[in-house]
């Protein structure tokens, strides 16, 4: 009996893994966990784009529904390859401001830079079991989804008059160039803003949202308002969204997707306590940021509701604005602080949205400049006030108000100028905006030759006047067409000349 037990035990011990083998298994499990984690953040982040499409589609008038939705769909078609061929390389190689010298490949640049070239091993299927091997693909995909998001932020502001192709060109520049350049500078552990000034924007208040808002503002200045948006005195009218329910559902989908966005902004390192790092490789936890985003929504809804006096669109947009306002410090904020700060962000979005529309007379169809742009910059400013001293980056430079300010002063022109210049060039080439006749008729007929509600009777389009009165839109739109085009609708332009 004793001898048989001993033989069983010795047989088991012979099969037992060594500590080295156990460590190898643990490391492999950790890598698989990492890959699965980022894969599912990508899946969840798709909801952001479902949401953007529903949000903007609902906010458009019936005659522009499909042309609005196609922008969101085709964002994926153009930003994906451009980010693969150029954008990821910018992130890998532009951390110090300009490009690394020479041919970018793993041999010449054995670090991250070389692995971001589209012909490197890390950018296609491979079985290298390391962070920079096959796992770099899920990192790339997470960043790609950030890129779609950045481009889509601009999308809604331009609806109902921008050419689809013009938007796609602008989306490539913003999604695969501008934002990823600022991410290389200030949203990576080795970025020059991080290593020199302790710039801290952990969940991308400014590097995604603020920059997209600034770029969008530059585009809007050249694009101009929709026909009929402002009366002769410059007072704003309001177009009625054709489906507010769809818009609100879209916003809720964006909110859901934002949890994936938040999670994807962390590094998971399951074999080292506490298991999570922020984008600057400082320790944090998934629970920390999840609490902040949730309280950010709560505070943002509250602030939006108060400032807009209960307007449903601005109440929900306030939620998004609230989260964006606390994202930069989401890795360090207390939930109560996040709640308070996000409430101010929700209010700021409503007030700045009104200012942009009524004072600046910029027609931002969904309030993107206010919600993403203003609150994105506001979020970075708040970190300088409420998280000053927190060590950031690989050399632990303390976060400071001055460092945050330097980041803001760097990123605003980096975003605004390309948006303004490229849209100006498109405008000069007459490729930015649809012809006014097409805008009045609706873009869907020109782009797709069909109505997308064929079984529903059309009713006269309405418009809300500055005094709140809702009236039929057609006479006003035709009058505005005449005023802005110098001749009556239907009369050729040359006949209107004296």
């Amino acid at each position: 009996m004793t001898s048989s037990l001993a033989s069983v035990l010795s047989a088991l011990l012979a099969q037992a893994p060594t500590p080295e083998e156990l460590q190898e298994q643990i490391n492999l499990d950790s890598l698989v966990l990492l890959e699965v984690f980022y894969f599912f953040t990508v899946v969840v982040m798709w909801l952001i784009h479902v949401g953007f499409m529903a949000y903007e589609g609902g906010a458009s008038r019936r005659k522009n529904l499909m042309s609005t939705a196609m922008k969101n769909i085709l964002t994926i078609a153009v930003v994906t390859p451009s980010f693969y061929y150029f954008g990821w390389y910018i992130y890998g190689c532009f951390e110090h401001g300009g490009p690394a010298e020479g041919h970018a490949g793993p041999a010449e640049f054995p670090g991250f830079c070389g692995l971001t070239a589209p012909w490197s091993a890390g950018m296609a299927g491979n079985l290298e079991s390391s962070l920079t091997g096959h796992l770099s693909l899920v990192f790339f995909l997470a960043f790609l989804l950030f890129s779609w998001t950045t481009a889509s932020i601009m999308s809604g502001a331009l609806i109902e008059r921008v050419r689809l192709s013009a938007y796609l060109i602008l989306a490539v520049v913003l999604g695969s160039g501008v934002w990823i350049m600022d991410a290389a500078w200030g949203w990576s552990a080795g970025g020059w803003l991080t290593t020199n000034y302790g710039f801290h924007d952990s969940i991308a208040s400014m590097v995604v949202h603020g920059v997209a808002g600034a770029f969008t503002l530059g585009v809007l200045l050249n694009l101009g308002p929709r026909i009929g948006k402002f009366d002769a005195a410059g007072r704003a009218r309001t177009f009625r969204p054709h489906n507010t329910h769809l818009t609100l559902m879209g916003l809720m989908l964006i909110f859901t997707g934002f949890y994936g966005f938040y999670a994807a902004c962390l590094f998971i390192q399951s074999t080292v306590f506490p298991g999570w790092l922020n984008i600057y490789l400082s320790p944090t936890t998934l629970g920390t940021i999840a609490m902040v985003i949730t309280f950010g929504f709560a505070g943002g809804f509250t602030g939006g509701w108060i400032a807009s006096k209960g307007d449903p669109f601005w109440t929900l947009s306030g939620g998004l604005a609230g989260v964006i306002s606390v994202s930069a410090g989401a890795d360090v904020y207390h939930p109560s602080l996040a709640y308070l700060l996000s409430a101010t962000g929700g209010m700021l979005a409503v007030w700045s949205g009104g200012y942009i529309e009524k004072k600046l007379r910029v027609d931002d169809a969904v309030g993107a400049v206010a919600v993403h742009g203003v609150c994105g910059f506001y979020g970075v400013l708040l970190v300088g006030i409420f998280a000053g001293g927190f060590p950031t980056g690989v050399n632990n430079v303390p976060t400071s108000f001055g460092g945050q300010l330097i980041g803001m002063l760097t990123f605003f022109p980096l975003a605004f100028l390309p948006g303004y210049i490229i849209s100006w060039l498109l405008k000069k080439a007459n490729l930015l905006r649809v012809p006014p006749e097409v805008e009045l008729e609706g873009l869907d007929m020109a782009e797709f030759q069909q109505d997308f509600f064929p079984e529903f009777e059309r009713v006269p389009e309405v418009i809300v006047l500055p005094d709140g009165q809702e009236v039929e839109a057609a006479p006003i739109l035709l009058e505005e067409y005449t005023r802005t085009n110098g001749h009556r609708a239907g009369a050729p332009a040359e006949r209107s000349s004296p």
Partner: protein
Amino acid sequence: MIDSFPYDSWEDVATTFWTFGPEDSTGTYILTVLGIILMVGAIIYWVWLENKKLTAQAELLRGAGGLPPASPTAPGPGFAEPPLAGPSTEPGP
């Protein structure tokens, strides 16, 4: 059992196998260049095609003697209702 697969003997081939060649190879460069050509070509085609559609539609609307109503009242595509704008024979402002 999955761990009984001859993984070790496959690994060398599988790790380095790429269609048209491994990293930093001529085949990979060619694929990259072709992909960029498709991407740029698609954008140019979008610009051209949309411009053609928009120009045609705008000319159609102007040539039809007046703009369609900004808010059509008839179901379905097309312009069943007379345009709100006056006919093109009317004098301009």
